[in-house]
């Protein structure tokens, strides 16, 4: 034990936190609290056992001095040090202090369910990267943080989603952004840098047209909304179509090349991460259902850059005429190709129901390459 002065008030009344688990073996307590395991030496264990929320530090010290026929000053110092250490470890609180400031002060630090955040440690690079701008937007009952790499990107996103903008909850301020938009200046001549949409550590949309990246953000945000209330379910596939006919196909390895090849066949691709399926009609909804979105800033961007890439599939409803997965195609193959992914924040049962409904309504084909997709859309 140290001879250093004790910072603990002798009148304080130490008490174990309610969320600890304890076992004592051979006079040494082993205590678990919130993932941490502590071993107390015999003196600290004795103090721990006396910390019943009734006796003050002074009273505990006096009792122990009597019991061990020891010097009251020396015992008080030892008890004070033990209480100080156990309090610093978060194992004891002062029962006499304001309960709000003590027992439960750190019991609600877990992220709220309605905030879209990734598990701790899931993306070290997201933690390290600094974004110039960050704002929070509501989607359904949830709130997501959206970062932007420059003032222009931030202004566009803010204008498009102004109706969804909310104050950033303190719990989100310390988390990496859920989405990040990276738009680059368009220069005449030379190769145009790709504009990007990040979701965690994954680039989920890339295009030479910034309007397509912002549309993709809209689609992504909508996919985390309350789809069930809208009668929709998110299927993990790409929507491609021509006119009012659409297909849900497996995500390609190289989306840019796939889009270009489809465009040559007159097939357009939705800027959506998922197919939002209405199982009651067999339609897909392209756009941002559930969000109040101002399309004019997106259309202005499109005017500036429409020559750089094909147009996306327009927003609205389209009838699904087939599902396309790589051969050999079967409902089981489609289920695995288009089904939910672990940790995707989605309603997995809703997605599975929507897929099963689609399997009943339309054929599962091996039309997975652009030519076959074009032919299938023609047939459908």
């Amino acid at each position, binding site marked *: 034990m140290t001879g250093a002065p004790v910072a603990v008030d002798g009148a304080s009344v130490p008490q174990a936190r309610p969320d600890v688990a304890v076992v004592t073996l*051979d006079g040494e*307590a082993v205590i678990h609290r919130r993932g941490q*395991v*502590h*071993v*107390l030496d015999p003196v600290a264990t004795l103090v721990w056992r006396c910390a019943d929320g009734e006796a003050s530090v002074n009273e505990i010290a006096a009792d122990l001095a009597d019991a061990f026929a020891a010097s009251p000053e020396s015992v008080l110092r030892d008890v004070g040090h033990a209480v100080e250490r156990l309090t610093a470890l978060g194992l004891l609180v002062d029962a006499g202090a304001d309960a709000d400031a003590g027992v439960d002060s750190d019991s609600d630090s877990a992220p709220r369910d309605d905030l879209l955040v990734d598990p701790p440690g899931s993306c070290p690079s997201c933690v390290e990267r600094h974004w110039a701008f960050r704002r929070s937007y509501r989607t359904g009952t949830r709130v997501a943080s959206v970062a932007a790499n420059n003032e222009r990107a931030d202004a566009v996103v803010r204008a498009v989603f102004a109706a969804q903008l909310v104050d950033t909850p303190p719990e989100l301020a310390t988390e990496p952004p859920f989405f990040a938009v990276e738009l680059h200046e368009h220069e005449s001549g030379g190769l145009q840098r790709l504009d990007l949409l990040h979701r965690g550590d994954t680039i989920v949309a890339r295009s030479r047209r910034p309007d397509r990246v912002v549309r993709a953000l809209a689609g992504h945000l909508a996919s985390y909304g309350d789809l069930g209330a809208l009668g929709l379910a998110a299927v993990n596939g790409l929507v491609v179509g021509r006119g009012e006919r659409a297909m849900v196909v497996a995500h390609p*390895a190289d989306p840019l090349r796939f889009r270009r090849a489809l465009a040559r066949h007159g097939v357009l691709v939705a800027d959506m991460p998922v197919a939002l399926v209405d199982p009651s009609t067999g339609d897909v909804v392209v756009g941002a259902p559930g969000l109040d979105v101002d399309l004019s800033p997106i259309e202005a961007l499109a005017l500036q850059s429409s020559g750089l890439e094909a147009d996306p599939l327009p927003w609205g409803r389209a009838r699904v005429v087939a599902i396309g997965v790589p051969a050999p195609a079967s409902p089981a193959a489609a289920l695995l190709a288009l089904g939910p992914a*672990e940790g995707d924040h989605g309603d997995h049962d809703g997605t599975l129901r929507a897929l099963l409904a689609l399997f009943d309504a339309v054929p599962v084909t091996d039309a*997975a390459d652009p030519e076959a997709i074009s032919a299938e859309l023609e047939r459908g």
Partner: protein
Amino acid sequence: MDEPRAEVRRLLDGYPNTAEGERAGATPRLCLLGFDVEMHTPDAELTRYITQLYAPMRRADQAEHVLTLSRSGPAGAAGPEWAVHLDAIRVVATPAASIAFQYLLWEANRQAIESSTDFVLVHASAAVFDGMAMVLPGPMGAGKSTLAAALVREGLGYLTDEVVALDPATGLIRPYPKYLSLGGALADLVPQPPASIRAFLGDQHLVAPEAIRPGSIAAAAPPRLVVAPRYEPGAGTTLDRLTPAAALSILAQHAFHIERDAQRTLDALGSVVDHSQCFQLVSGDVAGATATLLELVAEIAASPRASASS
């Protein structure tokens, strides 16, 4: 099983097929602690190999869950080539067969841990001597699997190389006799896998316990010895007694899901320590560590106080 999961289960029965449309295979039903699963792969040889790795946990009838290792199509086609799904939920998609296979085994183990709420689970290997269990808790790289394999080769019974499942009601450690995953030190124990599946294995050295020593799977046994191993390259072998509190602290630090019911877990592990002799083993040499442990178990078995039923 509720709808739509039942329909999903029906669709997955028989998937995946080979490119020629032939059924490649499913393992039998496997009971991995509380996780009831069969594994499907597109390669019949790989399916046979997995079945051997989990042979002691085979059961009859249809399993509740399916873990599927699938190829999404011919090389160069759309999408990643390999994927692992638990039922219809994607666990991983990757171009590398070896990564997908690693995930398949990892997910099976993870689900075994997640599904086994009746047991107190500890990240530890365990072997049986004289009807008593030796528990070796430790982090990855401590030498748990290597020591378990070496002890099994020397005649001890095999309980697990990774997850000790303690039944608080009986005080017994239940076997979870999955394959052992070994480092290079005991690579000679690992039979050469069929050439056609080596791409799936990557640098993993997996061995079924029966391949180390036939008849090595032990029945449930009461813990009577706790040894926390630590591998230190180049170190000589030392064995030091741990205080009961220190041993309990080590077990608790390696308990899975302790936060689900921390007091129940600590009580159960405290009881293990109460009935056990507890040591810290530091070694850089498998043979030396194994010899030390064999001497220790011989001493304990010979001691008049030692008894599986005490």
